[in-house]
């Protein structure tokens, strides 16, 4: 067997997986998006751009997703960074493992059950009752975009904490000492040394959370009360209620296109950030 043949053999399982699990389903979605809805629902083969022309009917869903997904990513990042910093830099090594495990503990039960817990926390007998008891008036939290944002941050926080933690943990502490020896106050050291060196972790975390959020449907469904509608909810509705597979496929293709564009732009930005800082090695 030549080296070349051996290489092919090694690549075959991954390539086969890729073909069956990614290329084929995506092709089906792409083909369906040019079809029509059957009389009782489903899909009828056709070649029409009607489904794409109808996309503006889901404008609000795209809008909600494109506002709340970046906002949720940003909020998760702002909350995760201090947490990861504390864990990586400030915590006694003997506690680290335990604290890290605590970050993953929520993953031990389903997000469905955890979201139901939030329904009660944000519902009329939860936090709003507390706010009312303090005499601060009557507020509704559950079934609002704010509740969805809380659910998003809560659900995706661990995915953000870990990459940031790793980049901060690997950070060469001698650089911090050097910075301080050269007379930089702690805050300057943090913003000029720590933050730039942790950018790869922040970038990975944001990417991970953002991509998953773009397809999210459960949190808006449960905490948005069916009123805060994401593209994911539009898709669930089109396939599982109105049975319009053709239009559903067009919405899915549109979502993929938006993802590709945003992720490409994002990668470019991060790459530029790297090259402009070639004085420190970041990767």
């Amino acid at each position: 067997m030549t080296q070349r043949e051996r290489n092919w053999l090694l690549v075959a399982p991954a390539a086969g997986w890729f073909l069956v699990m990614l290329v084929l389903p995506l092709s089906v979605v792409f083909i369906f998006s040019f079809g029509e809805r059957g009389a009782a629902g489903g899909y009828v083969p056709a070649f029409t751009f009607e489904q794409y022309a109808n996309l503006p009917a889901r404008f609000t869903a795209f809008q909600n997703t494109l506002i709340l997904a970046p906002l949720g990513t940003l909020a998760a990042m702002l909350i995760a960074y201090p947490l990861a910093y504390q864990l990586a830099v400030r915590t006694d090594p003997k506690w680290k493992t335990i604290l890290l495990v605590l970050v993953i503990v929520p993953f031990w039960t389903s997000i469905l059950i955890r979201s139901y817990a939030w329904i009660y926390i944000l519902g009329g007998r939860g936090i709003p009752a507390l706010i009312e008891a303090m005499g601060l008036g009557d507020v509704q939290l559950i079934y609002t975009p704010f509740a969805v944002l809380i659910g998003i941050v809560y659900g995706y926080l661990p995915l953000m904490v870990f990459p940031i933690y790793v980049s901060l943990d690997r950070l060469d502490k001698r650089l911090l000492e050097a910075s301080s020896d050269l007379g930089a106050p702690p805050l300057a050291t943090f913003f000029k040394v720590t933050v730039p060196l942790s950018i790869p972790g922040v970038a990975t975390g944001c990417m991970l959370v953002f991509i998953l959020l773009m397809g999210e449907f459960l949190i808006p469904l449960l905490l948005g009360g069916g009123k805060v509608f994401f593209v994911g909810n539009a898709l669930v509705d089109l396939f599982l209620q109105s049975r319009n597979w053709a239009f559903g496929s067009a919405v899915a293709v549109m979502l993929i296109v938006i993802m590709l564009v945003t992720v490409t732009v994002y990668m470019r930005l991060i790459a530029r950030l790297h090259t402009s800082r070639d004085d420190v090695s970041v990767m």
Partner: protein
Amino acid sequence: MTDKDHMSKRKFMQELRRYQKGSVSRRHFLGVTGLGAAAAALGTAMPGLRPRRAYAAGDIGDRVVLATWPNYHDVENFERFTDETGAFVQVNVFGSNEEMLAKLQAGGSGWDVFVPTNYTITTYVSEDLIEPLDVSRLANYDAGAFDPRFADAGTVDGSLYAVPKNWGTTGFAVNTAHDGGKPFATWKDFWDRTMDDYSGRTMVHDYQLTTIGNALKYFGYSFNSVDPTELADAERLLLDAKPHLFAISSDYQPAMRSGDAWMTMCWTGDGKQLNSDIPEIAYVLGREGGEIWSDYYAIPKGAPHREAAYALIDFMLSPEVNAREVMAHGYPVADSRTNALLPKEMLEDPILYPAQDLLDALEFGAAATLTDPNRAELLARFKSA
């Protein structure tokens, strides 16, 4: 949560000591601590772990999968079925007939028994998704015992496809503690006051038939209209009302019970359950009309446990079992044999059996609404708006 659901740590330890000393039985211990129920709930996730018993009619397998609606069964009946047959009942709950149809159309649902509503059955037949029933295997089915109004839809082109489960109405439940002495009587009240003194407190179903249908009633149109101009009026009303809604969901009992929601579109049994526990919550049928419906038991094509499916349907049709169901969920039945076993106050309950003039205004859902692309798209636009 009521007091009897909860047990203090100290009480638990006392019970544990009593059990260890042998002064109470294991059954008592598991019962009072709730551990028995917890273990049963865990066990249900793994039917293979349950002991199997021989069933008189032969081995029907270890499980039967039922697709049904929320708050629609007496769980103890399922336990009895498992005791008698050895087959565990795995329940899937749905929010709309569209969802059920979508699942069956996609294939591989794995269901053995499902509970379609009257107006959907002809579509299941024409889509070849439903099995004709073999009456000889349903000893408890007595066609003559059923009120034909609620049984007719089970027969399509002379073949029996579905047998009646329950019937009921779709009205709204309203918490009268907040109505300021002004009672509700119509769908006009429902929508107008959603945008007024009940703003932020109203729920509508995540279901095209009822949410669109009851918006159509505001204008006095048919509940089943597929007329584009009438639907456009309904859409305008829905979009106007949307900012005032608490939520769009068919699972409205939790929010009504917690007091977060004050009013919701509501089915008979939910209305009865809410009213029994919280008397301020009234069940109202809009004077303009609305929906009257009947649900059926049916077997989908390709049911993986067909023997068990027949056994379950037959079991549920036995009048004793059916009567226990009604007592638990509060939906009336069309079966005179079951009604003979029910207490008088149940049969005279105005929520289950509304006044004749209110009933006369109601319409059965029409098959066209299920497949009409405009109604489906209208609801989706309303939700995504």
